[in-house]
């Protein structure tokens, strides 16, 4: 079992997980810069506490905890940002790299999913966590995690189905 402290090539490890972690953090903050702050803080804490990289559910729990903390601390700023975002959508950094309009529509559909479904979807698809790991990170049962995931997929399919 390897941990991050003894992981000589921590950069390759971080490169691998950073995009998924950032996407996970972006659920709570609009700004990519804030999401990067959160991911940095979580990753450093995880690394310093000598956790094993296999125990990555803790890393996601840390990102979630720090992000929620961030929202509470900066609630006024978040409200201002939300207003600004509502007025100027073009300034939001995209969360995905689109190749075509279908992917853009899919990303928009993900954006409007309920938060509890979206976080499970992000952890499962782009971070490749198991339902057991997701359940551990979110403090829910595996069945709940799996059903939230299915609800999210069903909602996305309904949104994208041609009418």
């Amino acid at each position, binding site marked *: 079992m390897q941990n991050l402290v003894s992981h000589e090539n*921590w*950069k390759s490890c*971080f*490169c691998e997980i*950073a*995009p*998924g972690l*950032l*996407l996970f953090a972006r659920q709570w903050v609009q700004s*990519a810069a804030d999401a*990067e*702050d959160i*991911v*940095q*803080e979580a*990753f*450093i*804490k995880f*690394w*310093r*506490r000598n956790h094993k990289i296999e125990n990555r559910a*803790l890393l996601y*729990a*840390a990102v*979630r*905890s*720090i992000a*929620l*903390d*961030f929202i*509470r*601390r900066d609630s006024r700023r978040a409200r201002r940002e939300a207003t600004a975002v509502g007025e100027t959508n073009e300034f939001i*950094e*995209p*969360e*995905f*790299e*689109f*190749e075509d309009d*279908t*992917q853009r529509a*899919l*990303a928009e559909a*993900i954006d409007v999913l309920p938060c509890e479904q979206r976080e499970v*979807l992000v952890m499962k*698809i*782009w971070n490749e966590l198991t339902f057991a790991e997701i*359940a*551990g990170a979110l*403090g*829910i*049962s595996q069945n709940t995690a799996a059903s939230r995931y*299915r609800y999210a*997929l*069903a909602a*996305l*399919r309904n949104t*994208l189905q041609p009418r």
Partner: protein
Amino acid sequence: MNNFSDIENELRKLRPAQPSPILFERVEEAMMDRSAVVSPARQPERLPYNWLSWGIGLAAAAALLLFAVLNMERQQGGGKEIAQISREPETAPLLNRAEESTSSEKFVPAGATRLVYNTRDEGLQFGRGSGQPVRRFRYQTRETWQWRNPTTGASLRVSYPSEEVVLIPVSGQ
């Protein structure tokens, strides 16, 4: 789950945005500097408040101490008792004690309040060396102590802010 394989495949084709190259530099710097746990951009926010709280708290404590010293000097110098802070346990009903006082020159405790003006749930935390998460609550309070001279009506009030952090273990499923 197979019913959703088509949408899952579509989702997997979507690639999350890449982090900025600066993030890697920042993480590397933070890993080198073991003392910087919190992002330096956000750390100063809490400092002014904490210093202010400590300052006010210390000032209140100093005022209390000064009052006690002056009181002792007066008692020793003139042989005449002017004011006294009750030494009875805090748990006794303070207001009743004021009524029980028979001396006309004594300051007696007249009230104590603890106002919780802010409670903040700071989320789950992972303690150093402990795998079990804890939920951290921060309570900001203002404590006020009052003394009154029943004869002259003179009163003394000391008020100071305090902050309390409570960690509640969270059990996993």
